[in-house]
């Protein structure tokens, strides 16, 4: 190669490499600041007067969500005065065929004041129902274990308002540009999924000290 050509060759190579690397890093780490407005009709835990709100978009059939729910429950138990935890459905129906039905089951249980009980049950028993082609009977079984009114539960799970409630959550998640589950928002700001409970608690504490 001539000297002049060499300079061109290396400059273009390096430029292309840096550009592609930058594109890939951005694709892997989208920074959306989807503002997340909390309404009265949310499934929440902790104090409504808390300074920090943690919104979780989750999918009952997602294995990672089943790992995170324990962390988030623990957070609500330990820091319930300082943080309000909100659960929103984001069922990834294309890869989790039972996820929408599971969300409807939780909503239906919610009609009888047992949303969080059903939420815990669904995550605890995820492996038992996630490979079923139709998990409805299993969910009815959980409703029985939770002493719910089964006739009401059965009609609620297929109710169009319940289905819409799940769809609305999903839409709000799309608006917030979330790409997978679980996705966490701390006071409206999307955070990287903490790798441990301690890191989650630290993120909440950092947010608290920012405000106070």
């Amino acid at each position, binding site marked *: 190669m001539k000297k002049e050509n060499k300079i061109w060759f290396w400059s273009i190579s390096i430029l292309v490499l840096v550009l592609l690397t930058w594109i890939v890093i951005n694709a892997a780490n989208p920074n959306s600041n989807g503002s997340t407005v909390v309404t009265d009709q949310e499934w929440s835990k902790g104090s409504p007067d808390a300074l920090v709100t943690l919104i979780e978009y989750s999918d009952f059939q997602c294995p990672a969500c089943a790992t995170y729910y324990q962390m988030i429950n623990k957070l609500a138990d330990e820091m319930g005065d300082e943080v309000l935890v909100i659960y929103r459905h984001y069922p990834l129906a294309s*890869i989790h065929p039972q996820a929408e039905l599971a969300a409807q089951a939780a909503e239906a249980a919610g009609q009888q004041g047992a949303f969080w009980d059903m939420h815990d049950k669904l995550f605890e028993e995820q492996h038992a129902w996630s490979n079923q082609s139709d998990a409805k009977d299993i969910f009815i079984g959980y409703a029985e274990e939770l002493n719910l009114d089964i006739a009401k539960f059965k009609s609620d799970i297929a109710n169009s308002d319940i289905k819409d409630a799940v769809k609305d959550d999903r839409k709000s998640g799309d608006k917030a540009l979330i790409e997978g589950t679980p996705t966490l928002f701390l006071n409206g700001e999307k955070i*990287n999924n903490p790798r441990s409970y301690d890191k989650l608690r630290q993120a909440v504490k950092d947010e608290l000290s920012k405000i106070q």
Partner: protein
Amino acid sequence: MTNLDKPLKTSSQKYNKLIYIFTAISLLGFLDAIYLTTSHYTGHITCSVISGCQEVLVSQYSEIFGIPLALLGAAYYLFILINSLLYIDNQNKYSKLVLSYIPIFGFLFSIYLIYLMFFVIEALCQYCLLSAGTSTLLFILGIILIKKK
């Protein structure tokens, strides 16, 4: 003259093609590894169409002495990429040696990682499989390069 010239030309042309394939594959491997490294640090790949990556990327096997394997993979692919570019530039024999033999280690390491994914972590991550694919291709290209000597 023509008889002597022709085979020489074609062999060097083939050689060139091989180097360009090296460049393309190592670039693909590098970008894939960068994607995995970013995902490792942000914990972003959870349950999406690429399910399974979360389990693999945050498993205890995803780091060696606190360095993510994905980052080591990126360094490996970058090394191969730079050597392919150097070879295109000045045909030096050291780069050729690197391109011939280093992918063997990359390939062996990939086999170990595939073993971990299938039998130890029991979760599959498409991006990690892609990396195994690119390192296998580099290995095959390296063998071709050795045979051509």
